[in-house]
């Protein structure tokens, strides 16, 4: 159904007066898996989003919100897709009170622009996301997952204190506020964070902030094998619980990160540690971690760099640097189970590559050239006792047609469907892309 077909006789066509795109060649950038929309709306203000959603709702159109499109790979193929709602022009700072350590921004602002603005005042938002120069804050919240430093800093949910959203029918609502502690009404910002755009369109976000640390340090230590690197990283995480990052990389992941700008790395299995705070404190934490690494027999000399942000971002970018046509898996599990999970994956996957293991956070990324639905099912079954959850982050469409990228929604599925029915009764938003067919 095209947008113009959907209009009832006598009604103006949807999106009249909004900045829209309908030429197929310009719509190509809004492809999701193999689907293309018939129109795109470029919103420049919240009122545009309200209008667009009200029109889409009246015309029964299915809408997919777009930010920087760094994570559009995540999700099942859409069941329906009529309109792309592009939020990238909603990129203003709405309100910034440095002394309150809070900022309110529009959803289309990129993470790197935000960090630049905050850096002027010696502040930051301690969240990692691949391709931060492109990833928008609305998208980051909609995906809603903690990154490589989540053991220290949690995820978007933990930094969001307020949100403004436009509901499926075009009604604008807000949740939370601009204070760092708040229990006035239900925490809808938590509900929308991680909802993958299936409940409404996030248009404005308020974050609490952190001061930039006086000192931020990274060291890298080569290891003979990935197993050694991972064991050493686990030992470091146990010995130095105040590390702000503790990662084991396989040799090919280290090589790729180096190609992306992490000059610290060489083409070998590597442990990367990060610590911050006052200089003496960061040094103290790293020295505890290093002793633990030496104790498990990894004795190659540590390397240091002053290019902290570039190095760390290159490692974060690996998540989206999947070799062509490879399938990228993400595992989350209690950190102490990581070693077992790695063995399991190694046994079941065909040529697993580019391992990234956040040893303190219980996160593991790995890619593989090929995987079938049976293998995924078996892995999920065997990860069950380890309390592991496996998500397929990116995969060719043919694999997505035979396997649920999210895995079973568990006992909460009933409540999730109820919530979806309440917030998007016409299933107009990102239909079918989320958990359990939502």
């Amino acid at each position, binding site marked *: 159904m095209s947008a113009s077909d959907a209009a009832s006789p006598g009604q103006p066509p949807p999106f009249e007066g909004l900045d829209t795109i309908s030429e197929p060649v310009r719509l190509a950038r809004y492809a999701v898996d193999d689907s293309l929309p018939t129109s795109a709306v470029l919103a420049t203000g919240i009122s545009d989003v309200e209008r667009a959603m009200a029109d889409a709702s009246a015309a029964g159109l299915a809408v997919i919100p777009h930010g920087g499109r760094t994570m559009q790979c995540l999700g099942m193929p859409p069941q329906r897709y009529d309109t792309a709602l592009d939020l990238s022009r909603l990129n203003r700072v709405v309100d910034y*009170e440095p*002394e*309150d*350590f809070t900022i309110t921004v529009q959803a289309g602002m990129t993470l790197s622009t935000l960090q630049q603005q905050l850096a002027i005042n*010696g*502040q930051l938002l301690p969240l990692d996301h691949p391709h931060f120069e492109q990833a928008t804050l609305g998208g980051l919240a909609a995906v*809603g997952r*903690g990154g490589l430093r989540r053991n220290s800093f*949690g995820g978007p949910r*933990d930094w969001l204190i307020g949100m403004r959203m436009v*509901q499926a029918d075009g*009604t*604008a*609502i*807000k*949740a939370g*506020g*601009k*204070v*760092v*502690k*708040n*229990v*006035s*009404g*239900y*925490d*809808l910002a*938590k*509900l929308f*964070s991680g*909802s993958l755009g299936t409940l409404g369109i996030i248009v404005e976000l308020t974050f609490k902030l952190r*001061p930039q640390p006086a000192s931020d340090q990274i060291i890298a230590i080569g290891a003979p094998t990935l197993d050694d690197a991972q064991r050493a990283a686990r030992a470091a995480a146990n010995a130095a619980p*105040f590390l702000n990052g503790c990662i084991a990389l396989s040799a090919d992941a280290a090589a790729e990160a180096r190609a992306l700008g992490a000059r610290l790395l060489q083409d070998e299995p590597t442990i990367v540690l990060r610590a911050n705070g006052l200089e*003496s*404190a960061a040094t*103290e*934490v790293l020295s505890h971690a290093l002793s633990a690494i030496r104790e498990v027999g990894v004795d190659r000399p540590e390397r240091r760099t002053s290019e902290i942000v570039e190095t760390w971002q290159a490692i974060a970018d690996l998540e989206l640097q999947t070799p062509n046509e490879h399938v990228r898996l993400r595992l*989350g*599990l*209690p*950190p*102490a189970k990581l070693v077992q999970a790695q063995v399991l994956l190694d046994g079941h996957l065909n040529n697993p590559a580019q391992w990234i293991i956040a040893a303190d956070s*219980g*996160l593991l990324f790995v890619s593989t050239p090929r995987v079938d639905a049976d293998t995924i099912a078996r892995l999920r079954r065997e990860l069950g006792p380890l*309390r*592991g*959850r496996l998500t397929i982050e990116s995969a060719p469409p043919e694999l997505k047609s035979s396997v649920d990228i*999210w*895995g079973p*929604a*568990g006992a*909460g599925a*009933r*409540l*999730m469907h*109820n*919530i979806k*029915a309440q917030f998007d009764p016409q299933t107009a938003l990102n239909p079918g892309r989320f*958990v359990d067919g939502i």
Partner: protein
Amino acid sequence: MKTPTALVLELIEAIGEDAVVWHDEDLLVYEYDGTIDRGNPDVIALPADTDDVSALIRIANKHGASVTPRGAGTGLSGGALAAKGGVIIGMNRMRRILSVDAENKTALVQPGVVNLDLGLEAERHGLAYAPDPSSQRACTIGGNIAENAGGPHTLAWGTTTNHVLAVELVTADGEVQWIGHDTRDEPGYDLVGCVVGSEGTVGIVTQALVRLVPRPSAVRTMLAVYDSVRDASNAVSAVVASGIVPAALEMIDKMTIAAVEPVLNTGFPLDAEAVLLVEVDGPESQVEAEGARVESILRRFEPREVRSATDHEEREHLWAGRKGAIGALGQIMPNYYLLDGVVPRTKLPDVLDAVYEIAERYRLPVANMFHAGDGNLHPCLLFDEREPGATARVLDAGGEIMRVCVDAGGAITGEHGVGLEKRDYLPWIFSEADMDAMKSLRAAFGPTENFNPCKIFPAGHGCGEAGHQHHAQQQIAKFGPKAFV
């Protein structure tokens, strides 16, 4: 002799006679929590396990009786009061710490576990449970989850919502489900994030998997004494703006000191206008350097003195003065009304001035002891309810104070919840559409009309004349219902 109703008989059949309280004189203690409102439950049921909770909810639903969950009853918003009578489900018998996983830094607990007991158990494993409300010697984890409780040490670590990973939840229809995951990797909506802070209006938590945090190797607790509240609150703003995130940053004013000092002998000078308690923690070297920097900031605002606790005992002593403050206020007046406004931190000095001005205008003594670093105020209005008109004056003053917080860009509650007490003020910060969206979320959890009714949202049908609604309505009339929407 009172005759048991059919509802009572069925509850007794389900969980046993010793677990059901229904005689009038026994119900009295369940009429109160920490607020000045009252509720009159018909019966109290004390489940031993999850199946009991599910059965109790189903029985109540069958009889059309409302259900109100209750922990220790220390709540400060009327959340545990039976606003429409019915059944109170008291979680106090489910009070076991089921396991601690030190390597993965989690603990599995029942909801009736007392906050401090979990803290002490975590300490045995070299860890800590971060949320530490002042009522932590009595309040329970289930109640903490309901209200998204905070405490002095949530400045650095965040409130309860940042520390609950998964819960077993019995929803308003009696269904049992585990939601969430050990490392927040459960695919789908953040149901745990919805349940924490939902004030017991969508279900009852019967188990919780909580996050524990590493214990810092060093701690320094400082006491700074000021001759003016303004200087103290400016010092707070300066510490926050400096980029240091202290573990705790608390203010205690003169009225509070007057109550605390004779009882607890904490060493707070009786003639000081305000004292600040500031704590920094972390690795030794960090604590040494940050402590020195904090001290120099505190000294910029002309304190009478700044001193540090030299040992664990002295530190505990200082904290006892803060955490025991509310209880000690009974020294001054028999009743108190404790507010929970929260404002952007730079607005603290002005808002505090306004709080003192309002209290004076209403001829009410006010004591302030609060989480200054978070911008979370706890003005405590002192009164004697036997004095005619006193309660009304307190409620009016409370409404004005909340209004000042809202006008400063803040909110009506930071960690106590809206509950019964502040529900009529919710339209000051949320539009009809905002509240409708919240109600949609509630509806997703089942038939919740009778589940902890009359809480959070402005009065609904049959919610009766709870103590101060009339006053709230007057405040609304004065400022307009949508003045800040």
